[in-house]
């Protein structure tokens, strides 16, 4: 495990956050998380406190609500959740338990990607220890009537199952095909009950926020992106690995820390992210400027950006569920277009068509996969139009 910076999460006192939460009413816990302004660490950046409030207020006819931890971590270039599940699994479970108290849930599930099956044993052991210590099960920490337990369920090799509604379908024993919104999972989630689905890292920060207070969290980051963020840094860098930075760190600072000073460009956000060229390395990692679930893939001067686009589109063609036309048909067309560009056989007219297709996919696809799959390609065309076009026959 390559963790390159000290982790704040490693300094959090075990179960202090849970104790602080149980000393308050559930709605007060939600208020504290809301006040911290934490946004989901899985990439989409939805406000955690708001998600929890909606789930707590949604009617639960048979009294059931669920807490689901999204440990599917399939975005290319992302591995920080694997680090957290290896190093601080207790904090993740503690965060889920605080979530259960806040929304009134009795059951929790960690959806662990099948690729991480080797983490399962350690997680099960950690859960058993927590049960033995009265931190899971009945009357948790001596709180009468607070009953909650967590199980681990494995995925089976599908990137799309990281999308929260596909994940819920998978947990229910179905193909991992995204559902229609509305309703959202906070209203009708697992087995039709109100459900919060949060990223591993999101849950891991919750005990720290409860133990140290929302003001501590608010003191870190930028105006719209609060707290520290874990980044997964890979590619052409001397020191790849997991790094913790406050939101607002510049891409240049990230590259200096990781030994990627020679970078020609970076991909921020994985395969569904965008290309940031060297001229924009002053940009910050934040929801305002370069939003990411934490993947930073560094590209050295010898890398062909069209190869990168081709690799990403091959990935999306492979992982699309084919439920909706823009994504099922659009990704293979974009892939063919990128290959034509590489061969120097793409005309300016065709490039324009590909751009329009990409924008249509962003607007008309049913889920985030199809909505984001064109973004790297489109960012290349916007940024490096001439560099790509010089292979286009005149």
């Amino acid at each position, binding site marked *: 495990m*390559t963790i390159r910076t000290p982790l704040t999460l490693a300094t959090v006192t075990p179960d202090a956050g849970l104790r602080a939460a149980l000393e308050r009413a559930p709605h007060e816990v939600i208020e504290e998380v809301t006040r911290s302004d934490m946004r989901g660490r899985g990439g989409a950046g939805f406000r955690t406190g708001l998600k929890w409030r909606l789930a707590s207020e949604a009617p639960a006819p048979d009294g059931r609500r669920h807490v689901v931890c999204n440990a599917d*971590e*399939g*975005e*290319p*270039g*992302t*591995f920080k*959740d*694997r680090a957290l599940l290896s190093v601080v699994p207790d904090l993740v479970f503690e965060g889920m338990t605080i979530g259960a108290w806040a929304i009134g849930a009795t059951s929790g599930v960690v959806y662990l*990607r*099948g*690729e*991480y*099956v*080797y983490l399962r044993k350690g997680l099960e052991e950690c859960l058993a220890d927590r049960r033995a210590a009265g931190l899971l099960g009945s009357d948790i920490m001596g709180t009468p009537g607070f009953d909650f337990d967590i199980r681990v*369920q*494995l*995925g*089976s*090799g*599908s*990137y799309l199952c990281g999308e929260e509604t596909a994940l819920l379908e*998978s*947990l*229910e*024993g*179905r*193909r*991992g*095909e995204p559902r229609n919104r509305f309703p959202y999972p906070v209203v009708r989630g697992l*087995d039709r009950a109100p459900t919060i689905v949060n990223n591993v890292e999101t849950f891991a920060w919750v005990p720290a926020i409860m133990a140290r207070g929302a003001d501590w969290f608010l003191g870190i980051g930028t105006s719209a992106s609060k707290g520290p963020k874990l980044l*997964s*840094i*890979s*590619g*052409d860098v001397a020191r*790849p*690995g*997991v790094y913790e930075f406050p939101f607002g760190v510049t891409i240049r600072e990230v590259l200096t820390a990781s030994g990627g000073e020679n970078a020609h460009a970076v*991909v921020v956000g994985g*395969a569904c992210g965008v290309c940031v060229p060297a001229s924009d390395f002053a940009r910050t990692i934040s929801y305002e400027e370069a939003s990411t679930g934490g993947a930073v*893939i560094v590209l050295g001067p010898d*890398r062909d950006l069209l190869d*990168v686009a081709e*690799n*990403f589109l*091959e*990935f999306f063609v*492979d*992982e699309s*569920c084919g439920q909706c036309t823009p994504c099922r048909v659009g990704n293979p067309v974009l892939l063919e277009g990128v290959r034509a560009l590489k061969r120097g056989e793409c005309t300016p007219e065709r490039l324009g068509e590909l751009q329009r297709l990409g924008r249509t996919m962003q607007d008309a696809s049913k889920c985030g996969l199809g909505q984001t799959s064109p973004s790297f390609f489109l960012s290349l065309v916007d940024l490096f139009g001439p560099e790509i076009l010089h292979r286009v026959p005149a």
Partner: protein
Amino acid sequence: MSSPLLATVSIENADLVAMVDALVTRHGATRGALLPILQDLLAERGEISTLAMQLVADRLGASPAEVQGVVTFYSFLGEAARGRHVIRLCRTLSCMMAGTRDVAAAFEAELGIPFGATTPDGVFTLEWTNCIGMCCAPPALLADAEAFSSVSPAQVGEVIGALRASGVQE
């Protein structure tokens, strides 16, 4: 509870029936237990046969077509039989940039099969996979349930040897 068809075939496939029933008992006869049941079935038998899908469907009260739909959706499941050991090599960006193609060529040369195939003795299957979250130490692969990182072409023999040593029936 079983249909007459399944009662008949079960005479010849008593071990499969017993295994399915044991898995249904372990995970519960609910639709939500379908993936854990299929995952364990695959781990124990190396394939999910048509009969196995019919049996599982029967026990969970689902249609066989729905179970087949689930089996074919997930890349780690599927109807094709696999070898006793499955090697999944990552072909996503960070690994490709670090030389996955050379590692793939070494595996193909060592085992004498292309990616997507199983050795004639049924011991090894080579598959491509997408990012396995080991991008900080590429090229990376999954060998059964274990991850290997920073794999060089020269280490391919070592990976195969480790798998052979772990094979109980070898």
